[in-house]
């Protein structure tokens, strides 16, 4: 992002700061915060029965006539030129329709990179896709074999011989640091923040820590592989995809292939895990371009290895965190700087300093992120990007400081929790981290923790407890649209192009719409996953629920107006203004005199209408700029470390969350637990083995890339404050990503408590605990 963006965002903030809160979204609390029936209930996922019965149709299961299949060939060198490609044997292999290389691939422009200005710019990489003989990273697609069956395509792909002219490549993180760039902004935040003189405070303060923390690269491993089917019908395009960005993908594809928006339809009713990895990448472009060229529908399904080769993951990082405190434990300086990888053709800045900007007060701050260029598949957003690894560094450092001061680490944190946003001075819309810690510590039994490390053991196992703060910003995205159709039989359908990645989007929005429209949840149908429906933003930044909720709330207002118009003069609600009624019990009622009401059925019958449909857009998310809106959590961990082998076994995890209203405890608990399990993987085992000699990912399989197995996952307790945010739709803030944050630090801190050994580079594998 640019200096211009800093200026624009900065002036928006300034202007919004002058506008009275009452004029803005969130100015008055959403009335549904107080008045709700379906929201907050343990509704089971509406898609559950379909999935259990195997009837949920995922993208790779779409049946289509004349469908052909593709296998991709990936570069095995990092930089160079394709000197010779022998495709003859592949072309002659049974079932092969065509071998596509840069020579015969239709000319397609680069994908515009994801950014803040243009919502249809959703590319994760701006590199050319099969457009020239250049190889720019190890794993890049250099050919695609199109065949009648997947097996035929796979076999033929193995027959392609490629000779490369190798060129020097940048693959070593440590070396590339010397040429690191300092971007002007990180997402919508100004990158470099300097308040006071933190370095001087560090030297003069009675207590301080100053250490470097390292986290490895990680790869996406959604169970459902990336798969896309592209079918042209004349000049119209239908794409069956598994994507977190249904409508934005359709817009981007339309732009790229010179089509009108209405000529492109992207369908993605179910996504088998997204986590940030299911965006627009090379395989969709190949599918669309080649399907047009061969005049047949084409499916491209990545192999598991293919996902590692061409879908980016979490960037590795090296972070310095230094904190100083006065004798009473008040922070006088907070320094958080570091390096992560972001090639110029990538879009994800790995915003690991966000927690340090929002959680604690300190007399001075020095915060800046630097980007290292490597020749790699561009890294991308991976569940709690930045925050997951940033909280590891920050919250480890606080634990180290507390230990050095002989202070309880919770007490030290509570002593420094920011009352207002520490950098902007803006008041928090709602913030109850202290309560989250208090509640969590009580449930967890924190008082049983030994303050002196390495003093509790059972047999060969040393036992320890640790805690950390988790953190995630509130985001509501602009551009959320819905349609609401209310029928004379008392049912309603809400529709938008939103994404269901397994977290319960349809269920929670049906709960919401039921309360918003005053209908039972059984009367609500929620349609999503289709770009032909009103456009919803991508599912990212834990923003989807509130973004769509905002649009449904706006839709309910429009519907109210329309119903009052239809009700006419003969209705009991005649003459009432929209602000004087509410939608309740299947109809409209006067807020001050509920006896004055009329049912939808009756209104529509009198108006001789079968149904009424409105479309509406959510308001611009200006509340984000007026208030500091931030979720946080207290994470607790108890674990054992073998004195013999250094093996770490986590016995208990507890997450105590402050994320506003919890809309559905069942789906929320599942989201929190899932996130915490990912945090456990981050802490103990997940690591992309990137061979710096070759620039190649070496463990591109689920056998070699470790994620937690069932036996690694302990009892996970989750709880929440449930305090509504008065500035957000439904009082809710996102919950999809915060579960990951804080966990790695809680584990590292517990390992220190158990053993007295401080591990500052993830993952915490047993070899790091073997040394005396």
């Amino acid at each position: 992002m640019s200096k211009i963006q800093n200026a624009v965002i900065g002036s928006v903030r300034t202007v919004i700061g002058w506008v009275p809160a009452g004029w803005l979204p969130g100015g008055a609390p959403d009335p549904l915060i107080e008045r709700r029936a379906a929201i907050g209930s343990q509704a089971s996922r509406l898609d559950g029965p379909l999935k259990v019965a195997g009837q949920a149709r995922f993208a790779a299961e779409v049946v289509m006539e004349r469908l052909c299949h593709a296998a991709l060939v990936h570069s095995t060198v990092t930089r160079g030129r394709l000197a010779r490609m022998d495709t003859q044997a592949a072309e002659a292999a049974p079932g092969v329709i065509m071998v596509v290389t840069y020579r015969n691939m239709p000319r397609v422009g680069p994908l515009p990179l994801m950014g803040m200005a243009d919502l249809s710019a959703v590319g994760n990489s701006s590199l050319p896709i099969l457009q020239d003989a250049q190889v720019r990273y190890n794993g890049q697609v250099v050919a695609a074999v199109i065949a009648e069956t997947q097996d035929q395509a796979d076999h033929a792909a193995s027959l392609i011989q490629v000779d490369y002219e190798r060129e020097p490549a940048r693959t070593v993180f440590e070396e590339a640091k010397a040429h690191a760039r300092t971007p002007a902004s990180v997402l919508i935040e100004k990158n470099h923040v300097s308040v006071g003189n933190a370095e001087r405070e560090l030297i003069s303060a009675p207590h301080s820590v100053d250490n470097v923390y390292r986290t490895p690269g990680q790869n996406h491993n959604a169970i459902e592989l990336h798969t896309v089917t592209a079918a042209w019908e004349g000049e119209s395009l239908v794409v069956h995809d598994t994507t977190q960005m249904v409508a934005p993908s359709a817009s981007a594809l339309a732009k790229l292939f010179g089509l009108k928006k209405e000529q492109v339809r992207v369908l993605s009713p179910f996504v088998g895990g997204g986590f940030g990895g299911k965006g627009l990448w090379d395989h969709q472009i190949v599918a669309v371009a080649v399907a047009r060229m061969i005049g047949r529908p084409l499916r491209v399904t990545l192999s598991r290895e293919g996902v590692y080769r061409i879908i980016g993951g979490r960037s590795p990082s090296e972070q310095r965190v230094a904190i100083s405190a006065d004798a009473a434990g008040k922070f006088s300086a907070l320094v958080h700087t570091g390096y992560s990888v972001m090639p110029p053709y990538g879009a994800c800045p790995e915003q690991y300093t966000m927690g340090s900007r929002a959680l604690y007060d300190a007399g001075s701050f020095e915060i800046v992120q630097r980007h290292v260029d490597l020749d790699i598949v561009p890294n991308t957003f991976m569940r709690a990007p930045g925050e997951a690894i940033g909280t590891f560094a920050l919250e480890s450092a606080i634990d180290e400081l507390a230990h050095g001061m002989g202070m309880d680490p919770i007490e030290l944190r509570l002593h420094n929790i920011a009352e207002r946003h520490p950098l902007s001075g803006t008041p928090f819309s709602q913030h109850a981290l202290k309560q989250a810690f208090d509640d969590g510590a009580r449930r967890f039994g924190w008082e049983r923790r030994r303050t002196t490390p390495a003093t509790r053991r059972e047999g060969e196992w040393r036992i320890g407890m640790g805690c950390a703060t988790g953190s995630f910003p509130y985001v509501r995205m602009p551009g959320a649209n819905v349609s609401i159709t209310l029928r004379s039989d008392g049912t309603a359908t809400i529709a938008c192009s939103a994404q269901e990645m397994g977290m319960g989007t349809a269920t929670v929005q049906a709960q919401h719409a039921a309360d918003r429209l005053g209908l039972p949840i059984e009367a609500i149908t929620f349609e999503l996953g289709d770009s032909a429906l009103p456009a919803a933003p991508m599912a990212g930044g834990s923003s989807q629920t509130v973004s769509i909720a905002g649009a449904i709330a706006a839709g309910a207002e429009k519907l109210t107006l329309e119903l009052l118009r239809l009700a006419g003069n003969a209705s009991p609600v005649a003459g009432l203004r929209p602000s004087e009624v509410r939608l309740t019990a299947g109809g409209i009622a006067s807020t001050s005199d509920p006896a004055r009401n009329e049912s939808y059925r009756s209104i529509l019958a009198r108006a001789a209408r079968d149904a009424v449909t409105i479309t509406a857009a959510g308001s611009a998310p200006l509340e984000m700029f007026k208030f500091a809106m931030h979720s946080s959590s207290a994470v607790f961990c108890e674990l054992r470390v073998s004195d013999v082998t250094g093996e770490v076994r986590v016995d208990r995890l507890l997450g105590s969350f402050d994320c506003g209203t919890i809309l559905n405890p069942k789906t929320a608990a599942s989201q929190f637990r899932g996130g915490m399990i990912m945090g456990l993987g981050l802490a103990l085992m997940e690591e992309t083995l990137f061979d710096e000699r070759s620039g190649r990912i070496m463990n591109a399989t689920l056998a070699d890339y470790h994620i937690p197995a069932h036996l690694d996952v302990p009892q996970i307790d989750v709880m929440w404050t449930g305090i509504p945010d008065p500035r957000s739709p439904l009082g809710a803030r996102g919950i999809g990503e915060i579960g990951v944050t804080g966990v790695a630090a809680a584990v590292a801190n517990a390992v220190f408590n158990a053993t007295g050994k401080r591990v500052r580079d993830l993952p915490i594998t047993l070899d790091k605990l073997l040394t005396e």
Partner: protein
Amino acid sequence: MSPVTYVRAPSATEAVRMGSEPGVRLLGGGTNLVDLMRKGVEAPSGLIDVTALADRVEQADDGGLVIGAPTRNSVVAAHPLIRTRYPMLSRAILAGASAQVRNMATVGGNLMQRTRCLYFNDAAGSRCNKRVPGSGCDAIGGSNRYHAIIGGSAACVATHPSDMCVALAALDARVRIAGPNGVRTVQLVDFHRLPGDRPDIETVLDHAEMIVAIELPAPLKALHSGYRKVRDRASYAFALVSVAAGLSMQDGRVRDVRVAFGGIAPKPWRAIRIEEALRGIPLVPETTAAAIEAEFAEAALLPGNAFKRELAKRTLTAMLNELAGDDA
């Protein structure tokens, strides 16, 4: 995967005959071979499925057991005679892979499985002397956490990944092999070869031969035994270090001791030197430590796997102490 023919062998004799054709491979559960075919590491022209052959666990005349090569790993692990007489073997098998993989994988296939070296598995992008003799080894200067600290060579430091074979090595198991010229038997510890300058030749099995059974000698009396596997996650991971150990004490002295390591060598590593050093003496920390130290005197450590020497020493020491405690 390249096209491949597939037939089921009706008998061991037929399997040997069909399997001796060039380019043909015997297929057990396919849990490793089929993976490697998908990755292009193996490309046999034909597969002879041997899983219909004798898959029984039978008692032998010498008080031992004979396990048919096609017997599924899960069947062996759960077999009452294995669990009661060779509990170490049962535990070793259950420490390996996942329930689903164990249900498919056969005993013969377990011996024949290939290394999980990342560079061996990367046929498209890495050099490997085991895969392409003379091409070089990318593991030695690369990711070598799972690699050998003992028994390797300048050409190859890959480890044999089996858990089961580690217990078999400690139990003096024998491998019964059928070939065109009849049946022969070799000790399991002699079945796998060290890499030397030919890491592509992994066993003493000739292409025209097949494993028909594993023979277990009669169990040692009063042997307390165990299998401990140390790995990067609690289940479903290959061993960084595993130890199969058995100990029987008499009058405060070691009457018999068995030690085999997994995860540290190109083959299941029977630690004969440790056994000889400890036999007949009391188990005291200093001598035990010295005996273990001697076994690793020639260890060749790489940056990624240097920790394994300490890990192996500690794991075995803890196991011997535990087994001695059981005996007391």
